[in-house]
């Protein structure tokens, strides 16, 4: 999986290392470097430099990271996979662990409740991302016009994303409270929707969590789109104007394709995060009413840390991980293919 090609770059096809702008060719600062090597992206030094070989330096640099990740991410993951085939319960340390084969998986896949949780998660992920993309991209386009004071307003828009999701969930319960909170009053001020309860209504609660998540993370998508927009070189638009292409045409054939890789990256990050979502929703609705907003992670926490069914919850965790991993894999391949075009 070549990650280099997934990183967004200018549309002239030069991706990978040394993603310099065409107009930057002449701006190499350090004297003499230009004459010795071209802007080569592939040649790598293998010579010895004072003591350590390059190979050992490389491993020295990478090893601490890999070791830490192995210890704290991979080893637990493998342990989780092992536990998923047992009936272990973490609140009974003395009891011997029994191997039960695929019984946990069978129970999970046969349980209609579990499909409900996955459905709730899918609804949340899809709609929150859709809204964030529309709003975020729209905002980025508008901010890119560089009206007066746009820097300050941009900074203000960024504030929601800097809060702790758990705290956000908590104070939005306060805002959504029909009597003491301002949300209902404000909505009725503009629309006159009458009496309703955002987080107490079975139909509205899934939208409440989408709304709060969108409020929180639209700035993130906006930021990434803005970066994408800023990366489009001016000369391309100038060339299009020379060709007398309309603004609409410019938008669709220049702006969108060049921002799309950035956008898709933002979508991937947000989708991964929202699939794992726990703290915001658990504080906002506790998974209620009933189980309509009980996301996969919330159920996982209940199984693992309230009921202490460690083996069963490990199986659920493995299923979730495999799902995200598989989806991300496919997505990154798609992204790469898009980059080649």
């Amino acid at each position, binding site marked *: 999986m070549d990650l280099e090609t997934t990183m967004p770059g200018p549309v002239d096809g030069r991706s990978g290392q040394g993603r310099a702008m065409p107009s930057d060719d002449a701006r190499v600062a350090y004297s003499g470097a230009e004459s010795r090597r071209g802007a080569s992206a592939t040649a790598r030094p293998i010579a010895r430099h004072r003591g350590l070989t390059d190979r050992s330096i490389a491993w020295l640099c990478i090893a601490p990271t890999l070791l830490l990740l192995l210890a704290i991410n991979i080893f637990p993951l493998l342990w*989780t996979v092992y536990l998923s085939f047992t009936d272990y319960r973490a609140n009974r340390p003395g009891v011997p662990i029994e191997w039960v084969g695929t019984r946990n998986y069978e129970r999970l896949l046969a349980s209609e409740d579990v499909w409900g949780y996955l459905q709730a998660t899918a609804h949340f992920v899809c709609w929150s991302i859709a809204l964030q993309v529309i709003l975020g991209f729209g905002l980025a386009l508008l901010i890119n016009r560089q009206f007066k004071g746009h820097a300050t307003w941009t900074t203000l828009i960024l504030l929601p994303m800097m809060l*702790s999701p758990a705290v956000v969930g908590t104070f939005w319960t306060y805002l959504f409270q029909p009597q003491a909170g301002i949300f209902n009053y404000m909505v009725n001020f503009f629309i006159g929707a009458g009496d309703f309860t955002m987080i107490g209504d079975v139909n509205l609660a899934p939208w409440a969590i989408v709304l709060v998540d969108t409020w929180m993370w639209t700035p993130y998508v906006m930021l*990434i789109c803005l970066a994408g927009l*800023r990366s489009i070189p001016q000369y391309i638009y100038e060339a299009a104007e020379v060709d007398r292409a309309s603004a609409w045409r410019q938008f669709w054939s220049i702006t969108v394709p060049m921002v799309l890789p950035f956008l898709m990256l933002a979508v991937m990050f947000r989708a991964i995060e929202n699939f794992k979502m726990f703290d915001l929703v658990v504080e906002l609705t506790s998974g209620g009413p009933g189980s309509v907003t009980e996301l996969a992670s919330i159920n996982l926490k209940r199984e693992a840390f309230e009921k202490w069914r460690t083996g069963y919850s490990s199986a659920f965790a493995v299923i979730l*991980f495999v799902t995200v991993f598989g989806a991300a894999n496919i997505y990154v391949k798609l992204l790469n293919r898009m980059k080649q075009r």
Partner: protein
Amino acid sequence: MSVDSTPSVVAATPLARRVAGSLVIAYALISMIPLVWIFMTSFKTPSDSIAYPPKVVFEPTVEGYVNLFTNRSRQTPEYLASLPPPETWYEELVRSRNMVITGPSRFVGRYWNSLIIGFGSTFLAVFLGTLAAYGFSRFKVPGEGDLLFFILSTRMMPPIAVAIPIFLMYRQLGLSDTHLGMILLYTSVNLSLSVWLLKGFIDEIPREYEEAAMVDGYSRLQAFFRVVLPQARTGIAATAIFCLIWSWNEYAFALLLTSGTAQTAPPFIPIIIGEGGLDWPAVAAGTTLFLLPIVLFTVLLRKHLLRGITFGAVRK
């Protein structure tokens, strides 16, 4: 946040600019309303905060902040009369509500833990991430693409799922509820992001610079410090902001793996109970105070933030 030297803006008419401006300002104002309301709530009394209809005009007080930092208990007026007069302004405020301060709350301790664990893990993630990114970028590492995807995939596991075996592992190792345990955990989660981002930055620093430096006699290590790091500093700053935001605001691990000693602020703020329900002014006060360091950090480094996302499309 205007950083770029060659803005690629579609040439906009003044009218278009004004329309764009008003739409953005409208969105900014609407999205700020909840924050402004919470900020206002931090200056209400607890009964004002649950009044209905909600009070827009009210008498401000710092009771929320005092409640955030203290534990109190309600007493009868007779008992209060028997006590010596209050010595400080906040004691006086509390007494006026027929309560006495029984001691400081845990907020300062939690905030302090957040500072240690948040900044500690950010520093470590950026440090190790820079090293690893340099390694991946400059050297031919076997299986590089796969290793990089593997590093990214460590972020795909739901925190709750990782928490189960980490809980068991830390219990064995005695790392439960310790600062070190949490710093290591947060670092490893942030590494996936930091390696990935930093590799992008370091990739775009032409290796010619280092080559030239090494030809001039510097060792690779010196070249790293003298050439690569300064060039990468905006990328490092951007990565640091993202890592800090994540570590600072993390909830699930802090909830499940810590209790008295190493618990950070996010599990603490949503459960500040007043005399009935949540003490909303105190929760609002906690939210405001907790937001400050991040805002400060971001404002100081805001020039680097946008640059960071760009992965270096534009350079001076």
